[in-house]
């Protein structure tokens, strides 16, 4: 896929989503980047800022199979993965695919389900397959889980376990729209939900080709080194009890590739990693008790690291007499 084609396709998707979500270009692009990086997205924010809308808009913009799961405390794992049902006609068990058998799976309020049900997603998200009663069923490509969760409301929720969180490539916050965007939203949404008239501007095949393009983006050794530096720093930070996993560095680079491609580049910059460090790493790490007491959020810890760590180049280092910025 040529750069022009890629650019046109991505711009179309972004523009399409922006009909629904006003003034959140960066978030929308990040969501798209996660799709192109073959990752999964966790949208975490207070109620009513458009988490579900974003998920649905992204799903609608691409002409592919979309399933939605409303996570509730009584949801069972088999509702997610599927279940073997006895077929009386042929006297055999027959597999009834669950909700994950789609290109895009929108999991709403994922933290309302019990850990048992949440864990049903572990295999599908990482290995893109479902194993039920010893039989493994592959999932479709592209496959992406877009989950939303509400961090404020703690009653009756089950926080995602670390293993589950680590499987999400990025966690993004929607944030409140600015006044102008909110005004525009009032205008548009008062008469009719634009989501209803949203049409697909792309299809699964195009997305697969776009994913292939993203895979081809060049990552120089210096940038790889930088990714490792960032991840290592989280493991060595005195503020953190748990650092980022190797999966984190892999997904950081993958997403960075997607971001670079979205910006029309065929190479990754440290800037991409810097922009992604918080969304990709902050939800995977656990601060120490001290840091928590000091009200240091993981976002702040990661952002601080990004500001602190030197950028590796492929040249001999230390040629410039750098001093700390005052």
């Amino acid at each position: 896929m040529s750069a022009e084609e890629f650019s046109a396709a991505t711009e179309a998707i972004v523009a399409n989503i922006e009909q629904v979500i006003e003034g959140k270009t960066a978030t929308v692009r990040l969501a798209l980047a996660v799709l192109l990086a073959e990752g999964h997205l966790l949208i975490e924010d207070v109620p009513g800022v458009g988490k579900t809308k974003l998920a649905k808009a992204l799903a609608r913009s691409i002409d592919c199979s979309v399933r939605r799961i409303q996570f509730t405390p009584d949801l069972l794992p088999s509702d997610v993965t599927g279940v073997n049902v006895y077929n009386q006609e042929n006297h055999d068990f027959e597999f009834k695919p669950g909700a994950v058998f789609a290109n895009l799976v929108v999991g709403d309020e994922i933290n309302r389900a019990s850990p048992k049900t949440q864990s049903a997603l572990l295999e599908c998200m990482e290995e893109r397959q479902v194993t039920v009663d010893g039989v493994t069923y592959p999932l479709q490509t592209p496959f992406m889980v877009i989950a939303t969760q509400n961090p404020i409301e703690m009653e009756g929720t089950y926080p995602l376990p670390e293993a589950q969180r680590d499987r999400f490539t990025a966690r993004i916050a929607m944030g409140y729209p600015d006044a102008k965007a909110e005004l525009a939203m009032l205008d548009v949404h008062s008469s009719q939900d634009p989501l209803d008239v949203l049409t697909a501007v792309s299809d699964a095949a195009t997305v697969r080709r776009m994913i292939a393009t993203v895979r081809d983006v060049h990552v120089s050794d210096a940038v790889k080194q930088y990714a490792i530096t960032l991840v290592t720093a989280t493991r060595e930070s005195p503020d953190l009890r748990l650092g980022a996993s190797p999966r984190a560095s892999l997904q950081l680079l993958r997403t960075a590739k997607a971001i670079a491609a979205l910006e029309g580049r065929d190479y990754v910059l440290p800037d991409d990693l810097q922009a992604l460090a918080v969304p990709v790493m902050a939800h995977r790490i656990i601060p120490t008790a001290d840091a928590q007491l000091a009200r240091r959020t993981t976002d702040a810890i990661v952002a601080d690291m990004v500001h602190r760590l030197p950028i590796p180049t492929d040249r001999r280092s230390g040629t410039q007499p750098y001093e700390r910025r005052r």
Partner: protein
Amino acid sequence: MNNRRNLGFIAGAATIMSAVPLAGIFQHWTWMVQSIFAVGLITATATGVRALRGRVATQGLAMFLVLFLTLTLLFSNGHSLLGFIPTPETVAYFGRLLGDAGTQIRDNGVPVEDLSGLLFLTVFGIGVVGILTDLFTVGLRRPALSGLPMLAIYAVPVAVFPDSVSIFPFMIGAVGYLWLLVADNTDRVRRFGRRFTGDGRDVDAWESSPLTSAGRRLAVVGVLAAVVLPVMVPTFSTSVFDSFGGEGNGPNRGGNGKGGPATVNLFADLAGRLNQTSVQDLVKVTTTEGDPYYLKFGVADELTSSGFKTRTPSGQAIGSADLPDPNQRPSFGVSREKYTAQVQIGKNFDMPMLPVYAEPVSTQKIGSDWAYDPNMGIVFSLRSRSGGRSYQFDYVRSIYTPDELNSSPELSADNALRRQYTQVPLVVEVNKLVEDLTKNAKTPYEKVRALYDYFSTRNGFRYSLSTVEGTSGQKIVDFLHNKTGFCEQYAAALAWMVRTAGIPARVAFGFTRGSNVRTENGQNVYQLTNRNLHAWTEVYFEGFGWVPFDATPSTYVAGSVASDWAPDVNRPTAAPSVSPGSVVPGGGGDDVNPRGDNNHDPNAGLDANGQPITPAPVWPWYLLGGVVLVIVVLSLPMLLRRRLRRRRSRQVKASQAADLGEVVGAVPDQPGVMVIVSDSGADRARELAHEAWDELLDTLIDFRVPADAAETPRTAVRRLIEQQELPAEAATGARQLAMAEERARYARTPLDPEPLSGSLRAIRRYLISTSEWRVRVYAVLMPPSVTARWRLAFLDGVSGTAVKLSRMRVWLSRFNPRRVFSRG
């Protein structure tokens, strides 16, 4: 603030106290009055500037300015405006004064009169010490450092007095220094705030702490030990034990106690006195003669294998009869003139001989215990010594011409004089050399001249006092081989060689002409110092008597005199020829080296005309060299930075797209940006982009725009554009640089570096135009990019060393016996 003011005054007082040791140098106390005046003004200035809250640098500048004004007021001597405002003329005059001071230091022994040059130097020096003391004590709060400039003052009397220095002035200086330290520490302790006692009662600032008395006692014991111990220990030159033991080392090293002239080793005495670092006035002579030759007091005419020795002179007592008058001898055309001379001998010249001009015919005021040896031509005594005497004598000066001397016949081999004065130990090398040199000479004078002319700098002869004295056969060979020595070796070698040629010769000792102090009533007064002590050769010519020849290179002998018959062989125009009549160009009598007392100074030379030149003072050259060195060191960062910038911009500019391979416009939204595709060209383009980027960062650092290692090129440039509000052109250039750099670092294909040079220029131009003047000056003269790199390199080195050392310590601690044994 009040305490600080006190401290300033104490610093001034300590400076003055530390200058007390200089008192021994001057006869009067003028220097002290002037120094107190200067230091007082300096202290007052410093206090004033501090009251106005001036910085340390401002204080220093103000103090230097006031010192300059004070010096102008005290010394400008009309070379200034309104008496105290310096003009360029003042500076030039001060330079002359300093030059004078250098001469005066050489020419005068201690104690000296109030010579303006020396006074200027002293007040200037004490003023500078005062400024430094004030800065160290009050400005930098490091009073201990002010000991260093004070030490510089102490070094002066120690260097000037050759024998011993009284310790009492030094104690005054030490007390001043201690006072300074104590005052500073008291002040420092008081700054800690008010002290409290356990019961909550706060203590008055002046109430001493419980430890004070113990501290005070310790201090007293320490000072006592430091002061008293050196006095008691005999190694100190004014040690108590020494002064009980007798006279100590008196100045008359030559004559050991009483004894006849033969007991004096004139060679050793000469070498010893010439090697003295200080200048001692020995003899003052007043003569009616215009250009007197050397003043002679001793002769060494006995030559054995161990060298020339002084015989015991013999002669009749002076006063009992007239001395032989040369005028009674046949003249052979020699012009003879009679003169009168008065000699006043100082205490430091204590010999059993009296210096006289050749040849004395009558004497006055010389006691009857002195005798005259007509053969040697010296006045001697077996009982008395010369120290402190003054006397008068008439003498006849003979002026020979080469023609006349050339007519002197050779002495017959059985002549008694020849037998006595041509005895030479057999030294084959000398004989051979003499034979070579005199093979073309026919008359005795030609032979002597041939030998005399040999001792020329053209033949590699040099003057140096640092050679071993001695005139024995082996040493003569050494000297003729090394060609380095001083007067006694030249004199002995020439005498030896002349003797070898069969002509009577001996070594004479005395004084060169010395420096003419004044001329009054047709009488010339000459001051002779130990530096004027000299040895030369006397050669006997039949019919003429003993004729002096001074073979020592005249350039290095102050007051040396060349003559018609023995011209200065180092003068280029004086051909080493003995042909009669062609010896001395413009030979108008004697020719004196006009450098006065500046004796035995190897820094002198001859100018193109063969005229001895007055040596310019050397210190301006050192000063100039120092200034140049400082400028070079200070401008090093600037030069390095310029060179780096030139190199980078040349490289970037020189890159042509053609050299770098195929170029395509591959960036969709930036049509002007070209990308290098070929592999080899890509590497080169990458390097150039890096160079350009480094240059941008260096420029930013130079102009105090902070750079950060955690910033990517694009963030750095974005911040630069925002913070510095770069105009459109420079902003585009900056973005281009960032893009080139990030593509060079991270992309498959780098950018064409061609436009980068222009971008750099635009950014630099903009930064120059917008930054403060101070930043600009620093960026050019002392670029922070260079200095910071040095600083980082230094710190890296230091920390690296520290790490290595600690590792080594850890390693060594394995061998710590405690650890070793605790294992077992």
